[in-house]
């Protein structure tokens, strides 16, 4: 069995040659880039299109010879050498490794990886061939036969690429092939009934953090995710990246450091709300209800809009990022108490043991806890340093980012009015 990387290389070359072979003849291409898969390209081009890969030496004679014949050929150039062969671009079609940002209407015969991705998403027969090719290369006993999930993903990819043809990095064909290979490889390692080769696993391999609802759905299985839910997820995911990945790091509204601090605060508020709600449903007011009321103090203060317990955005730091997407997954933030609201202070209690108790209590209500909160130290009597770890098993899911982007305001207000707190 060859290594996964080799399989991806040859599958990519196979897919490119398949794409080239279906274009109108003669199959004479300038190949810009693709240096690492050139050998594989040569093998499949010879067997499918009956032509050769040529690495030009730049001699005049060679050029005129190449122009005279009609034999299929792939002329391999490095991207920096393109200039030397500028006049060739009029005589041959072009297969460019770098995705073109805008389509130049004058250059009709230029093809890039995103063209290949769109073409692949429209052709389920080719998809089946590619999956079979990969399974054979990996020498797995059976090749997967159900591609519903893959088709949904590719269809959605196509829609978004066509909406605005620009950068579509996740749906780069190489990434897709790599993810398919890894998923099949994983499935072959474990028994078919095991749920490890899931849609979530596939998504992490194309560089996206999955949502927990996809996390237990086998990728090549009978159960399929719904097209709508994927669409919704994709829109949500972009928003998350915008807030937590690419926004600037300085303080100021909507900036990264503020966003991560508020993420921590909102998750804490959500925990308290859920636990207090459960406690109130049992009919008696207990410890958690008291904590909840104390923690939510001051939010209705119209004049200042100040809360008693709030985060200090100076103190937010990112300690670690997810290797899949670069989203921050280990965060420290500072929770502080304002003295304007009376003497009670729950921060030392949270620091001692109550935060752990809260998390334990929450786990009793629901298993869906995809993050962990720990207290680090008291920075002073009124400031507590906390650490937020977003992780579920081996990879993270985006649910905490979604939940943490907004506080459960409606639920909080409902509970407060039930308790008669103004």
């Amino acid at each position, binding site marked *: 069995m060859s290594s996964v990387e080799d399989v991806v290389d040859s599958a990519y070359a196979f897919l490119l040659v398949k794409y080239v072979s279906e274009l109108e003849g003669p199959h004479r291409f300038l190949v810009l*880039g693709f240096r*690492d898969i050139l050998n594989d390209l040569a093998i499949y081009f010879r067997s499918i299109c009956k032509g050769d890969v040529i690495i030009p030496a730049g001699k005049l004679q060679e050029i005129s010879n190449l122009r005279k014949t009609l034999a299929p050929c792939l002329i391999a150039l490095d*991207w*920096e050498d*393109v*200039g*030397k*062969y*500028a006049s060739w671009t009029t005589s041959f079609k072009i297969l460019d*490794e*770098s*995705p073109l*940002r805008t389509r130049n209407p004058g250059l009709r015969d230029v093809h*890039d*990886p995103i063209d290949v991705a769109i073409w692949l998403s429209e052709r389920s027969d080719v998809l089946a061939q590619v999956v079979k090719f990969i399974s054979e290369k990996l020498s797995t006993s059976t090749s997967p036969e159900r591609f519903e999930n893959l088709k949904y993903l590719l269809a959605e990819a196509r829609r*978004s690429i066509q*909406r*605005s*043809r*620009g*950068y*579509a*990095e*996740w*749906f*780069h064909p*190489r*990434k897709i092939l790599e993810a398919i290979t890894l998923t099949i490889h994983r499935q072959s390692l474990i028994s078919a009934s095991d749920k490890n080769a899931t849609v979530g696993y596939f998504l992490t391999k194309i*560089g*996206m953090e999955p949502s927990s609802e996809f996390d237990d759905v086998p990728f090549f299985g009978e159960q399929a995710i719904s097209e709508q839910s994927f669409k919704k997820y994709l829109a949500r995911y*972009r928003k998350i*990246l*915008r807030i937590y*990945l*690419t*926004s*600037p*790091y*300085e*303080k100021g509204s909507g900036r*990264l450091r503020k966003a991560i601090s508020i993420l921590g605060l909102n998750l804490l508020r959500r925990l308290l709300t859920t636990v207090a709600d459960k406690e109130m449903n049992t009919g008696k007011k207990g410890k958690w209800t008291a904590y909840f009321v104390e923690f939510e103090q001051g939010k209705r203060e119209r004049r200042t809009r100040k809360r008693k317990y709030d985060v200090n955005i*100076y*103190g937010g*730091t*990112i*300690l*670690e*990022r*997810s*290797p*899949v*997407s*670069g*989203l921050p997954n280990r965060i420290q933030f*500072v929770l*502080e108490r304002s003295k304007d609201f009376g003497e009670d202070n729950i921060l030392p209690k949270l620091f001692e043991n109550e935060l752990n108790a809260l998390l334990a209590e929450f786990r009793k209500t629901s298993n869906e806890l995809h993050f962990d909160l720990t207290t680090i130290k008291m*920075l*002073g009597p*009124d*400031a507590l340093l906390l650490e937020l770890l977003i992780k579920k098993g081996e990879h993270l899911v985006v649910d905490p980012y979604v939940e943490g982007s907004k506080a459960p305001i409606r639920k909080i207000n409902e509970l407060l009015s039930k308790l008669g707190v103004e």
Partner: protein
Amino acid sequence: MHITFGVGLRKRAEIGTYPVLEDLEVAMKGKRYELGYAFRDYGKLALSIIKRLEECGTSSKAPQVLREVQDFYKLSDLVGSSSRAGGRFTQWMIDAECPKVAVLDIKIEKRRKKKVFFGPKGILFLKAASKSSNLAQSFEDMVILKVLARKIKNLAIVLSALDAEHSVDCYCGRVKGKEIRHLQNKKTRLSSKEVLATMRDAYLVHCEGSHIVPLAMSSNNPMVISSLIYNEAYRIYHALRIPLQIWINQSSKTSLNHITVDPYEISDRMPREITRALEKLGMMHFLHGIRFTSIPDQLLANLVRYFGESVSAEALQQQRKPASQMPLDSFVKAIKKEFRILINPNDILSFLKASVKYGNLGIDLQIAKGYLISDYQHFTERLENLGLATIRPDGDVMIRIE
């Protein structure tokens, strides 16, 4: 290697007096690399430089072009806008930073009197600026860009040292204020783990960006790469300061003189000033929620002129005829070396491979490469459209030298 820092006192009405971290410096192999900035308002830098030269009586030794700048300011002098010229930050720029980047040259004469001369880099900047339509502005921009480049280089030195040593001693060098005098020469230790250096080197990554219609902002997009690298540099600055500030807060508590401690006043003044300077130069762009660094047209023209001047000066020195065109590659290399901005995809990729834990930032180099190449092609197109470069019939891109 060790870090030295100062502590000052600050007063705020609701809180009282509290200690804050000041000037951060790294000492290594007998040299000092400061991480301090004052880019807030440098006023009319060119005019202030002229004034400084006049004070020392050395303005007659400066090149002719300086007189043109002087003339340029005469009109605005009349309107009275020169009052902004000599602020505290401008003074810092002239006395502390310009000599370090060879724009000015300070010689100490008798009775510790400083005399300011024009430096070799300053002459090149002036000559380049004289060919632009707004010479004072061009000159100022180039000086600030050069000063910024030095700061980024300092950060790079610190990062590589931190990476090599795992932990570093930090000394409290200067203390301002009686209440915290006991902090003088006290020592703490900072581990590289706390700073979490994802980078061993520091550069800015140029990205064309503005033509891109971003569809999916994955980490392989050049805009995102540029923004992640800048954010990461910013984050490391911040991470360097947090443990030190916390240490200062805890150590000053033991003081007999009671002072209030603001436990989380962790100022981010320093790196923010870099951002502001980059914004002033027009290098920071904010598009579709992503902030990235990109060289604007005006600055690009200035850089090309400066490159032309430095190439011609070198040719004159070697008694050769100055070239009228130079390959794009040598220009891009010069920008990388002198201003610490990466443009060529090969440079960006090798920087990511060699000095960045790019896996932690979610970057896949094989995919990113194609997008970086597209971006570079747009950069060459822009150079051609601005009339700064010509594309030869054989396809080579050549920078024009006036």
